[in-house]
């Protein structure tokens, strides 16, 4: 892309750079807008500012070492990326994690989904000028991060999962705080809805903006809340269940027009549905009682430290796993999970050996952002801001 000066006129058109460092891009995105007056004639997204070569790095790391890199894909809901990646590797290995770990993975995925949707709605609102809702929502997100810190020891970059299970079990103080969260979060969502849903300014800025037909959304490769807002009831948790999602009781909200307002409504309802799943997870954890959270196959998962220090065989397993990695079967798998933004896919090609031969991440917001030009063409600049927020573009997973 040729360098564009900050702002210049080109015949009747003015070319304006939105980003790479602009308050509404929330990350480093660059959009070149061609304007006629206030109307957008053409929008050219220019991405890659956050490209870190994750896939290239993955080819040179062991399967276990790649987990911290998945945190940095969608950094608003890093736990869900951890889960998505380990589910993919477990599909390649053809193993299943223990029941307690499965419930905990669902629990943390849904908490991460709530966190992601809270951020998305909050940021979208603050970009449009509704600052209050943003502050209300971020109070709840803080509790979610406290819960993550209890689980993983980290707030943002959790790296909580391991191949074959989880890093550790949740501590005793997790449950009371999670119960408290289940109590307070629906109230906050109600407060947010009172502030936004019937707010005429919010409706003016979002209704009809970014509307998309179901056929078009499918052709663009939309997934997640943006596709469901367009009226397609596609959710991998229902359609292609993983981690036992088919045993949980929840509904899939669907919109009608696919505009930013519908995306907001779909996300709001998904928060409520995710809270239902979290409730069921807590009940199940109580029913299951204590148990292992990682498989006891020491050719895949590290043996517990007590064994490493006291038993020769465990020490060898530990050494072999750290130095030589897991013995992978030869083959290729594509595994998709329903992340907060849509379908998060991992395509793994193994030629045996400790590192994947090829690892490819299919980020949900990449195809969605591809349609940005079509979404904003012929609209005013202010609509570009609403559309960008409604798409929930996360530069980390967009550029990888």
């Amino acid at each position, binding site marked *: *892309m040729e360098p564009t000066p900050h702002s210049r006129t080109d015949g009747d058109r003015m070319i304006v750079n939105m980003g790479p460092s602009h308050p509404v891009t929330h990350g480093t995105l660059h959009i070149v807008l061609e304007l006629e007056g206030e109307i957008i004639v053409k929008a050219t997204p220019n*991405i*890659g500012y956050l*490209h870190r*070569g994750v*896939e*290239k*790095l993955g080819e*040179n*790391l062991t399967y276990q070492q790649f987990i911290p890199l998945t945190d940095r894909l969608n950094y608003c809901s890093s736990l869900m990326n951890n889960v998505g990646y380990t589910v993919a590797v477990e*599909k*390649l290995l*053809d193993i299943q994690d223990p029941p307690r770990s499965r419930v905990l993975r669902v629990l943390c995925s849904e908490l991460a989904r709530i966190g992601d949707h809270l951020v998305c709605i909050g940021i979208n609102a603050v970009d449009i000028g509704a600052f209050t809702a943003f502050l209300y929502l971020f109070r709840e997100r803080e509790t979610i991060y406290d819960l993550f810190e209890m689980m993983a020891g980290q707030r943002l970059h959790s790296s909580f999962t391991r191949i074959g299970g989880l890093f550790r079990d949740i501590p005793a103080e997790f449950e009371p705080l999670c119960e408290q969260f289940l109590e307070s979060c629906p109230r906050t969502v109600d407060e947010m809805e009172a502030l936004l849903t019937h707010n005429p300014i919010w409706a003016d800025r979002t209704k009809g903006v970014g509307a998309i037909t179901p056929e*078009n959304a*499918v*052709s*663009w*490769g939309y*997934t997640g809340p943006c596709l469901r807002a367009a009226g*397609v009831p*596609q959710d991998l948790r229902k*359609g*292609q269940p993983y981690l036992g999602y088919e045993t949980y009781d929840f509904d899939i909200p669907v919109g009608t027009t696919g505009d930013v307002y519908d995306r907001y409504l779909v996300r709001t309802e998904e928060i409520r549905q995710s809270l239902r799943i979290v409730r069921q997870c807590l009940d199940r954890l109580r029913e299951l009682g204590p148990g292992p959270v990682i498989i006891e196959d020491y050719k895949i998962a590290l043996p517990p430290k007590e064994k490493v220090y006291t038993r020769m065989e465990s020490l060898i397993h530990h050494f072999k796993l750290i130095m030589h990695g897991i013995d992978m079967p030869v*083959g*290729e*798998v*594509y595994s*998709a999970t329903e992340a907060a933004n849509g*379908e998060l*896919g991992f*395509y793994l*090609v193994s030629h045996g050996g400790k*590192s994947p*031969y*090829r690892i*490819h991440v*299919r980020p949900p917001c*990449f*195809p969605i952002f*591809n*349609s940005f030009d079509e979404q904003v063409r012929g609209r005013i600049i202010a609509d570009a801001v609403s559309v960008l927020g409604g798409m929930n573009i996360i530069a980390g997973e967009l*550029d*990888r």
Partner: protein
Amino acid sequence: MVIERIEAQLPGAVLERHAFRGDATVTVAGARFLEVVDFVFGEGFQMLVDVTAVDLAIPEYRFEVVYHLLNLASQARLRIKVPVPEGAAQPSLASRFKSADWAEREVFDLFGIPFEGHPNLTRLLMWEDFPGHPLRKDFPLDGGDLFCSQDIGASFAPEARSLNA
């Protein structure tokens, strides 16, 4: 299964097939690729979820372009792989699937595989005058001498690779 129907309708198009871990996969000859895509589109595989490639670095054909398709009605997935020799072009799907636009540009950018008929085949993630294609296997992990020679005199790439070998 859709693969049996492809084999029945378009004899000779399928070079190889497997279902490792339940992922339906076909390898299709490059010349028959568009016919196969048209056929499976009619069968309901109307979402192009992903396009990527693998640098196999074997003499017969260097790359494999990998397409992942999803049938929203039956929730079936299909992986179509096409062998592409170095320097050869792959027909673009941009006129059939809108999502092929950036996905193919990314493959072009990172692997250097040209897509014939793509409306705007330019680099996507890397900058325009970036030397080489980073996801090719012969591209060093740290970028090689191009990026390292100025300040340290030599590339760390061989050492970096040997640490992980």
